[in-house]
Each structure stands twice: as structure tokens, then as C-alpha cells.
């Protein structure tokens, strides 16, 4: 069982040290991540930008325990991921992590409401309907509860995904190019909701994006190139966000 430690404002919710990921392709070793160090404090928002193929998604996946690193450590919410079994990692994700993907990743056979309910059901909660409904109303989909993903537009699907991510407020939310498949107008609405929910829940946010204007809304911006993190420079709100 994963212990839930109340968000300690002085301890990073995510701590990455010397994270390296390589792929072996016959003779060649392809280094996708090269000794990456990263710290994210509770409720902090952090944008990761960089050219395509620079390793952003890989980093995100490793941070969330979706994949195994070649070397280095990831400490998430006080838990060292290397030592956890797949199921323990899944349990940790269910408790502390939220996701928003570029391609939405809703389950096609479930309605909007059911998709949102999944994280609650996975925790054995059966009474979350009203919470989920309220969240869907909040993201403007109060009338689309029983619609299936293929009946929703991309922006709407992503809003369902947002509601799903926040139905059980996570300590840290990973968003991999959440607006990458959306037009700019739809993006703007979505990003507003994202930051709003984020602030309200005190969730830390790791946001991978191509969009400099979106990145600019984060507390800090991490630049990646060829699997390395470039020296950091602070965003407009120059100090780690504290509620």
C-alpha cells in the first residue's frame, strides 16, 4: 500500500536525479535522455519545451513510472519508483498522479461520465457520480454526460480527459502536449480550465508543450535538447507558486 503523505510544501513532489534512457538498436546505442535532473515542488507549474524528438515525452513517461529508466532515480511523492512493482506504481498513479495526453486517450467504449468515473472506481469509490458530474459541468460538458468519445470533438474529449484527471485531485499532473491536437481557440479555453483546476487543487503541473505562449503561463520553463536539460530560466512569476 502506498502511504499518502500530505503535500509537504518544503519537499519536492517530484525529484529526478541523473535520469538516463537509452535504446539499443543492434550495435548502436541511442541515448534519448542523458543524465536529467529535475525537481518540482508541490503546486508548482513547470513547462517543458524543446524540439520534437528531444526526449520530453520520454521524460514524462519515466517520471510517471510508465516506463523503466536505464539509470537514475525518480522520486514521486516521496516514493522511489525504481523499487516499486508495476502494480504498486499503478496504485501510486491512481492515488497521486493525473494525466492529460496529446491524443486524449479516452476509453472509446465508455461514455464521458463513465470515463471520468474510472479513477474513482479504481479506488473502490462508488459514490463519485455527483463529483464527476459537477466536474463535467465545470468543464462545460454538463449536457454531454452520456456521449461516447467518438461523438465528441477533440476539444471536448480533452475536457473530459481534464475532468478525469481532476476527479480525484492529484498531487501532480502530467500533461503531454495537451493542446497539440487542438486549434488555438479551443486550446485557449482548455488551458484556462487546466490552470484553474490546477490552482484550486494545489496540484503540481508538468506541462510538455511546443507552444511558447502556453509555456509562459507556467512558473518555470525547462528547455530540453537532445535529451538534456538546458540551463533553466524562470518564468514571469519568478518564485515557486505558494498558495
Amino acid at each position: 500500500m502506498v502511504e499518502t503523505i500530505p503535500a509537504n510544501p518544503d519537499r519536492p513532489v517530484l525529484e529526478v536525479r541523473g535520469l538516463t534512457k537509452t535504446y539499443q538498436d543492434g550495435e548502436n546505442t541511442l541515448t534519448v535522455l542523458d543524465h536529467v535532473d529535475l525537481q518540482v515542488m508541490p503546486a508548482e507549474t513547470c513547462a517543458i519545451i524543446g524540439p520534437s524528438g528531444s526526449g520530453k515525452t520520454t521524460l514524462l513517461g519515466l517520471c510517471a513510472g510508465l516506463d523503466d529508466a536505464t539509470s537514475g532515480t525518480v522520486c514521486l511523492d516521496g516514493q522511489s519508483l525504481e523499487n516499486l512493482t508495476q502494480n504498486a506504481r499503478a496504485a501510486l498513479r491512481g492515488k497521486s498522479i493525473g494525466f492529460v495526453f496529446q491524443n486524449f486517450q479516452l476509453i472509446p467504449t465508455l461514455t464521458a461520465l463513465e470515463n471520468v468515473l474510472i479513477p474513482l472506481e479504481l479506488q473502490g469509490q462508488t459514490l463519485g457520480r455527483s463529483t464527476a458530474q459537477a466536474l463535467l459541468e465545470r468543464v462545460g460538458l454538463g449536457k454531454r454526460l452520456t456521449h461516447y468519445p467518438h461523438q465528441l470533438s477533440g476539444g471536448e474529449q480533452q475536457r473530459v480527459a481534464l475532468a478525469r484527471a481532476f476527479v480525484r485531485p492529484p498531487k501532480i499532473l502530467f500533461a503531454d502536449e495537451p493542446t497539440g491536437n487542438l486549434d488555438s481557440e479551443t486550446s485557449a479555453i482548455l488551458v484556462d480550465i487546466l490552470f484553474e483546476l490546477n490552482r484550486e487543487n494545489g496540484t503540481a503541473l508538468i506541462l510538455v508543450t511546443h507552444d511558447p505562449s502556453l509555456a509562459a503561463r507556467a512558473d518555470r520553463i525547462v528547455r530540453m535538447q537532445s535529451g538534456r536539460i538546458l540551463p533553466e530560466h524562470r518564468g514571469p512569476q519568478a518564485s515557486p507558486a505558494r498558495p
Partner: protein
Amino acid sequence: MSATVNRVEPEALPQSFLRALLHPWTWRMAWRDTRSQRSRLALYALSIAIGICALTAIYSLKSTVQEAINLQGKSLLGADLRISSRRPIPDGLLGDLAGRVRAGSRETSFSSMIGPPSGDRTKLVQVRALEGGYPFGNTVECEPQGSWERLRNTSGIVVEPSLLEEFGTSVGQTLKVGTLELPILGVVSNGVPRSNRFSGFAPEVFIRLADLPATGLAGEQSLAYHHLAVDWEASTEPERASLSSKAREALAGKSVQVQTPEDRKESIGEGLDRSKEFLGISALAALLLGGIGVAGAIHTHIQKRLPSVAVLLCLGCPSHFAFAIYFIQAAAMGLLGAVLGALAGGLAHSLVVHLAAGSLPIAVNLIPSPGILLLTAAAGFAICCAFALMPLLGIQNVSPAATLFQRPAPNPRANVLRSAVCALLAAMVWGVTLLNGAGPLRAAAITGFMVVAFACLAATAAGLIRLTRALVRPTWPYLPRQGISNLFRPHNQTLLVTLSLGLGVFLLLSTWFIRGQVLNQLKLDTSLHTPNVYLIDVQPDQADTIKSMLGRLGLPTIEDTPMVTMRIETVKGMRLSPLEAKQPAPDAQPDTQRQEVPRWVMEREYRSTYRDHLNSTETIVAGEWPPQKVDPNEAIPISVEQKLAKDLRVEIGDEIVMDVQGVPMRTRVACLRKVDWSRFNLNFFMVFPPGVLETAPQFHLMTTRVPDAASSGQLQRTLFKEIPNVSAVDLTSLLQTISKLLKKASNVIELLSAFTLFAGVPILIAAVLGGREQRVRESVLLRTLGASEQQVRTILLIEYTTLGALSATAGGGLSWIAHLAAAKWIFKAPAQFEPLPLLFAFVGCCLLSMIAGILIGRGVCSRPPLEVLRQTAS
């Protein structure tokens, strides 16, 4: 502002797979996940149903046919149970079991001279005085019709046709049996089993038991045998068999010989046992074909659900829950398929029985037994679950990272699990083979072969992937390059198609080959060296006269063997004389060893021969023959037939003292022989070495072969005129009965192999089409990029034809090996090279996968690309 971090922790999902399986959420997810898929899932269930349909039909027919074969065995005995004794059989011998007797029929049989009243011609015959409905389960062929039945309530005599010839008399005339003159009611040509195969090869005549006292021969009854033929009040073979074995137990220790149909089946040889084995093999083939169907369907389904699994894992779903969700779906499909399949299989059974009514051995029940339907539905369901495990393991391979990247991450646990599932499947195959009557070792050998076949096919697929990857050059023309590249590129169908198609070809061809081998064994050996007439009671000095007489008649002397009658005095020092211990006290505890030896085995008369070689129907199973030295002062080495040795509880080296017409003779078991009783050559339970029995009083037994009834009659007449003490026993009617039986068994086997073929082909088509979605998606992309219909089709055709040809080659090769192995170890006969089925399978398999390629191409080209793209996107 931050929400309160006051989270009430509800009970999380359970940790074990079993509890996950029972968790309501799993069931809810399993149900919800079928939305928009239900018609497709129903289709998969249908494909499962085809497999189970085949299984049910074959099993159902198999048990029916087995029942029929057993009934045929019954027709060789004319009863479920036949009790014989030197003393009259008392009423109430069967005790409690008497209540289960539907009908009983008494008989007293003995040898006697009979002849026409004029008295100038008499002949030694076996007189059988009958009462009751014997033989049970047979129709007696007699001339004029109904004369057999008339014998039950009319005084008279029914004889074998040859006797009329010999006596120069006809139906309606009379024959004198003892002091009684009886009218000849008719001749019986077929359907009355011989009284005893091994004693008394005299012609048989039948009278009423009620007339026996009037013949005045009752006094000779000390030499008579008394029989009771029993027909059980039972409808199924297992029931009958269990009643018979209960009776055997109850009668053990009483001075009676008990025979069941099983004891007579040896005269049909191993052909029928092999047929049963074949039925088992075809059931196994059907089962595995069904398994291929199941695995293919579940694979296709799971492949499409993998992205959803990745999402669930991302959201914190433990992988055993994801597994449980799809396991439930697979099980539900399996259940649906099993029920539908069992029902369809039942219908198929009825259809086959209806269509083939004439060629089946007995009036088979048109309606399959509900028990069998239930059993196969349950077995089918279990098989479904087991075969579904393999593709379901794909879920274990899903990494949550698949939500971010389009790739599966290898999961080391899956390999362990995969091996576990393989082991489970192998165990199931072993179990089924065992259930089908193979011994544990043979079952293991068959299972091992299946595993090797599977591995070979997988290796072939892997080899093809490597080979094509190495071969394809960018300089190749576009279409072949694309088609061949499809074989190794990601998402290739190579392994799936090679496995299912290759296994399918392997199973179907093996079934076909083994069918041929069984049919071969079911052919009665009617070569010139198989005798059909025995000449008995030949004095040693008459042998040459008879040989020359046969020569004059143009008939061969096939065998000429001396024969000495003897009895057993002691076995391993233990004596059992017929007079001692008539009724052992109920609480007496005689030494167990002797108790187990059936009394009749000890009491009967043995006709033994002596020779220094084995004949063509004998094989040594232990010891050696002829023995190296025969020392008249030592125990004489003899060869004992293996079944008798089992009954006598003797092994190599054990001593048996024989009573050779008053002279005790110490013998030692030096050799155990297996005898093929189905060849009607002269065979003996005990064979002595030369140099021991020459001086004992003896007869000769000679055999010949007559081409037709007329020459049999001529032989009888000539014998009667020239050497009246010698009788000719014509076995042709028995041989006819057996050959009819074998013909029917052959028909059944033809039928079942055809059925396996018909059920197998659609399963294979479904399996090959299983991977089509991936190809459709790619082909639509090609279309979108401007490929012509022709190009898309050609690419698919090249890919699928290559797969078909390769699978056929691999499967064909494997089945050939199986053929050779079966010939060597199961049938012990040389395997015939059969190029035609191999060629046919090759062409068929190529065609089948070509058609699949064309069908997929049509699916792509007949619809607008956008529609397909949108459908396959979600």
C-alpha cells in the same frame, strides 16, 4: 485555493487475480467495454462455436460409434455375458444381479454323432440344445426365413448348410439325434456365434433344450457344457460392462467360465481398437482446431482493446484487473460459443446420423445424448478459457507507456506466464488424449509431438521474418517488395497465420493419414494364406492322404499342425482339481494368488502343439523361442500366449505342471507370445518345443482355403466319402460377419475424417482473416495515397500466398513425420507414401490464404477510404 487534502481512503481494489475476477467493478467494466463491439463479439463467439461444434459432433458420434462397436462385440458372443460350466448352471447363480437380467437363455452343448435316419452316414457334430432368445442383439440369417424362431416352440433341428450337403438331405427331411428323429427346420448361415472358438471345431446343429431328454443323450451330459447367455437390462455400454464385471466378481471362485464380448473381440483383431484410437485422435484434432479458432478470435479482439488497457494502467488500474476484465469477456464469449457450439454439434450429429444411417453399424440414436452435449459444452468452455489465455497474455505485455508512444514495452513476467500457459495447454492436451483411451506414455508422446509441432511452426515463422528481412532489396519492383515486406514489418501477421494455418494443415493432414492407416488395418486379410476351412481330428497317418486329396480338389494345404490335448495340474506348485472345493466356504480365505486365477482357466482342456518356429501371426513379447536347449530331465521350456499368462498369473521362469493325458509333465514358461487371433491361422495357447510331445497321443489340425461355398461342399462330400472321421469346419460365415463389421467401422471413420475436414476449413479461414483489420487500415492508407485497387490487391495477394505456401509446407512436413511416427509406434505397419493428400493440402492451403488475401483486398477497395479510416481510428 487548494482543496482540503482530507481524503477518506476507501477500500482499494483487491490484490489477487481471483478476487479481481469476482469484483463487481471488473464485471461492470467487462460489460461496458463490449459496447459498440457486441455484434463483432458475437461473431467471435460464432467462430468459437464452430470449433466446439466440431468437438461436440465428433465426440457425440464417437461415443455413439463406440457403443456400436461394443454392440458388434456383443454380436460375436450373442450375449452381454455368457456363463459356461461342466455342471448344470444352478438357478440363482447370479444372486442379486438376477434382477438386472432382461433375458437369459440356457444351452447345453456336447459332441455327438448324428445323421439321417437311414444310419449309413453319420458325423460328429456339436449339438447345441437351446432355450430362450439366444443370440441376443443379432439377427440370425436362416433359410427358410423364420426357421430359427420356429425352433423355439417347435421340435426340430437347424443345421449348418454344409451338413445338408454332406448328408445329401434337405429341409423338411429328418435327422436322427441320439434316439430322436427331428425334422430339419432350416439352415442357419449367419448370426449365431460359435459356442466356443477354441474348443470343438465341429459343425454345429441346434435343437430345443426341451427335446434333449428325448434324444437319450442326456446320459452323455457328463461330457456336456452348460451355458447361460445373459442380456442385461441396460441401455449403455458402460452400464452393461459394469454389470458384467460385477457378475464376474460374484462368480469368481465358482466353477464357471465367464465370457463377455470383450473376450471375443480378439477375433476381430486390433482393427477396432485402432478405430477407437482414431476416434480419439480426430476428437483431439477437432479440439485443437477449436482451440485455434478460439485463440484467433480472442487475439483479434484483445489486439483492439490494448490501447484501452494502457489507459487503464495509466489511471492506476492494477494489471491483474485489466486481465480479469478481458478474461471475463473471453469466458463469456466462450460460454456463448460453447452453448451454441454444443447445440450446433448436436444438430450436426443428427444430420450425419440421418445422412449416413445406412452405413452406420447400428440404428444410432438420431438425438445425441444430453450428457454428451453438456460434457462437451463444459469441456469446450474450459478449452476456450485455456486457449484464450495465450492471447490474453498480450495484456500482460501492455505498458502504460503505450499511451505516450505507439509501442509495447516488453514485460519479462509475460515470458514466465507464457510458459505457464503453454504448460497448462500441454497438460490439457495430455488429459484429453488420456481420456480418449491412450496410455499415459502414449498420451505424453502425442502431447510432446504437438508441442514440438507448435515450436517448429513458431520457428518457421520467425525464420521467415528473418529471411524476408534479409532478402528484400530496395531495388525490387514496388509491389513484390511491399508484399514481402509485409511479412516482417511491425504488426505483421506472419506468426499468427503460420501458427494457425500450419497447425490446421498439420492436424487435418495427420487425421487423414491416420485414417488411411486405420482403414488399412480394418481390411480383413483375405490373402491366399489365410485359411477359411479347418480340417479337424486328423490322425497322424492320415495327414498325407488328406494333403493329396486337397491337391486333387485344387485346394492348398495351408497348415498342418500336430495337436495334443492336456490339462493344467499345478501352476507354480498350486493345484486346483475340479472336484476339490466345489463351494469354498464363504468366509474361507484361500491364498489370494490362486483366488485371482479364473477357475475355468485352470480347468479347461488345452490343445497344444509343438514346433521350433513362430508363425507369421505370432510375435515374442518376452523370453525367446525356440528355446536353446531342451533337457528331458529339466522342466520343459514352453511358450505361453500372453493373455493366458496374465490369467494364470505366470511370468517367465514360472513352472506349470501339465497333465498330458495322464502323464504329468513339468514345464517352465520360457517365452510369452502375442498372437494375432484375427488371422484365422492355427494358433495355440501353449507351444512346446519339438522332441517332447511326439510320442503323446495326438491329432493333426489342417487348414485350407476354399474359394466358394460350392467347393466347400465338394470338400465336405469328398471327406465324408473318403475319410469320414475327419470333419471340415467352414469359417466363411464367421469371416463374413467380421468383414461386415470392419466395413462398417471403416465407413464411420471415413465419415468422421470428412467431418473434421469440413469443420476445420472454416475455422482456418476465420483464423487467417483474424488479422485483417491491420491490413485493411494500411491498405486504406495506401489507397488514400493513390494506390490502385489492383496494386492493393496484388500486395495482399503476395503476402498471403507466401504465408499460405509456407504454412502448408511446414504443416505438411510435420504431418508427414506424425504419419511415420504413428505407423511405427501405433500401427506397427510400414507407412505408405501418399503424395496426393500432401499436394492437395498444399494447393488447398495456398488457395485458402489467397482467398483470404483477396477478401481483405475487396474489403479495402469496395468502401471509400474516409469511411474506413474513421472507423478504424477509434
